[in-house]
């Protein structure tokens, strides 16, 4: 009679709001050269520390104001979104691929496979993640690909742990046993019966991980360990904004708000997707 609609309540609005923001940010990132009102790198000391549009002293065309070198903040945020999204997608996908595969294997096969993988995960999680990332980038050298690799190397354990637990739950189900009765082999059962049932969790985690990747990338650029310093990144803008917080708060606040909204949207989008498209969720 009641099929759990109550628990889905509210997932709709959440899904649309979060998805809307992500789509907006993604489109802005893809078409950055077309939508950015100014050149994000153009310095103009005549226009330094212009306030956002609603304050007195604002100049048309510089909607969110400028930084201490006179660069347009909105344009820098839009170009920064490119780096943020590239890192988010690439790093999260890589972490997901490695972590989910190992999680499935550990959870389904158990035994020594599980013991080895779980020990590696335990050791991995004992490293403080941010320090680990800084260390990795220091070893790999700065640059976009190093950042992506660093995040994937650190965060695959998140996927591995969750997917392992979910897989173990699935493996106890009668339909897994029945697949044996039907004559399926172990790999076949894992791919046919177990994997489809953990996909919703993978999707939710993937979205969450994209948000986390955005944060980690911001932290790395904040400490100047991300990509070359010329390209605008959200973390880099925040680092610069911190220096002039008393003269131009907007340089710190707008990138922070953008960052928070984006990270929040990623996690809510993932949860919303899971709640909406999981036929089993009760």
């Amino acid at each position, binding site marked *: 009679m009641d099929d759990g609609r109550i628990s889905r309540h509210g997932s709709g609005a959440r899904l649309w709001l979060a998805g809307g923001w992500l789509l907006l940010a993604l489109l802005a990132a893809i078409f950055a050269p077309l939508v950015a009102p100014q050149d994000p790198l153009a310095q103009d000391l005549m226009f330094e520390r212009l306030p956002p549009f609603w304050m007195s002293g604002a100049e048309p065309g510089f909607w969110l104001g400028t930084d201490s070198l006179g660069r347009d903040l909105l344009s820098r945020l839009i170009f920064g979104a490119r780096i943020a999204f590239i890192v988010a997608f690439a790093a999260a996908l890589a972490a997901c691929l490695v972590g989910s595969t190992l999680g499935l294997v550990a959870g389904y096969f158990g035994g020594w496979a599980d013991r080895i993988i779980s020990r590696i995960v335990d050791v991995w999680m004992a490293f403080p993640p941010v320090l680990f990332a800084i260390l990795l980038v220091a070893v790999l050298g700065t640059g976009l690909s190093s950042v992506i690799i660093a995040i994937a190397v650190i965060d695959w354990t998140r996927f591995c742990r969750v997917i392992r637990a979910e897989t173990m739950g699935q493996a106890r*189900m009668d*339909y897994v046993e*029945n697949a044996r*009765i039907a*004559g*399926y082999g172990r790999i076949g059962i894992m791919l046919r019966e177990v994997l*489809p049932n953990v996909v919703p969790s993978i999707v939710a985690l993937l979205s969450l991980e994209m948000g986390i990747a955005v944060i980690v990338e911001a932290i790395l650029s904040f400490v100047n360990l991300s990509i070359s310093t010329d390209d605008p990144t959200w973390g880099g803008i925040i680092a610069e904004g911190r220096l002039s917080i008393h003269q131009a708060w907007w340089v710190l606040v707008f990138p922070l708000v953008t960052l928070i909204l984006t990270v929040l949207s990623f996690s809510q989008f993932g949860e919303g997707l899971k709640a909406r498209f999981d036929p*089993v969720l009760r």
Partner: protein
Amino acid sequence: MAEPLFSVRGLKVALPDMTRKPLIGRAPMVEILKGLDFDLPRGSVTGIVGESGSGKSTLGRALVRLLEPSAGSITFDGRDITHLPEAELRPLRRNLQMIFQDPMSSLNPRRTIASIIAAPLRQNGFGDNLKGRVAEALQRVGLPQSFASRYRHELSGGQRQRVGIARALALSPKFVLADEIVSGLDVSTQAQILTLLEKLAAEMGLTVAFISHDLSVIRRLCRQVIVMREGAIVEASATDALFEKPQQAYTRDLISAIPLPEIDEGWLLPAAKVPA
């Protein structure tokens, strides 16, 4: 007289006792089945009855070799399957089918009913004309063809169990294990499922091991009964004989504990012990 489909001798099954697993090392093994001997004659339904902890489900899972016995032997259709490795069991699986207790858990939530019924067919070399075979299987259990594209959460409990039966019978197996298949259902649905199984078993000449805690149901469905308690067989005989002349006190207790739907003032009174 034809040789039995199953011949079980000295069957023991031991499983790790996870409640007593030490912090380091393996859990100690406990013997769930303590040496069982019985045959399952071809083409008839045998009831396996017992209370919780009797080992009846473990016995079922050993018969279809989801578990490997620790001692004794299981001969199926003239072949010793006691310790056959999984790869060698696979070709035999089409004749060792199972219907599960919980149709919710035994149907994959993300597969359509058609895909669930088709899986054993495809895997056992009946990949041609899958659509037709699935349609036939649905019709056999009295489900409309439109159910082929549905998912388990769109079905009622009784319909789900019909799908479980359709799947198990799709391959026309020699043996079907039915493990408490109606214990989660309402009485009206239970009656439908049982009469369906009864009819199909007779039509297809199936050999069925029918595991249940409910002796009333067993009396209706089964030609012979094995009564189990704590991993051992208490009594095994033809159904009518078992009910009319139970040989063991435990069997008598089991029968007299069933609350029949009829007025009996004395039933709840403390037993005036009948001298044996």
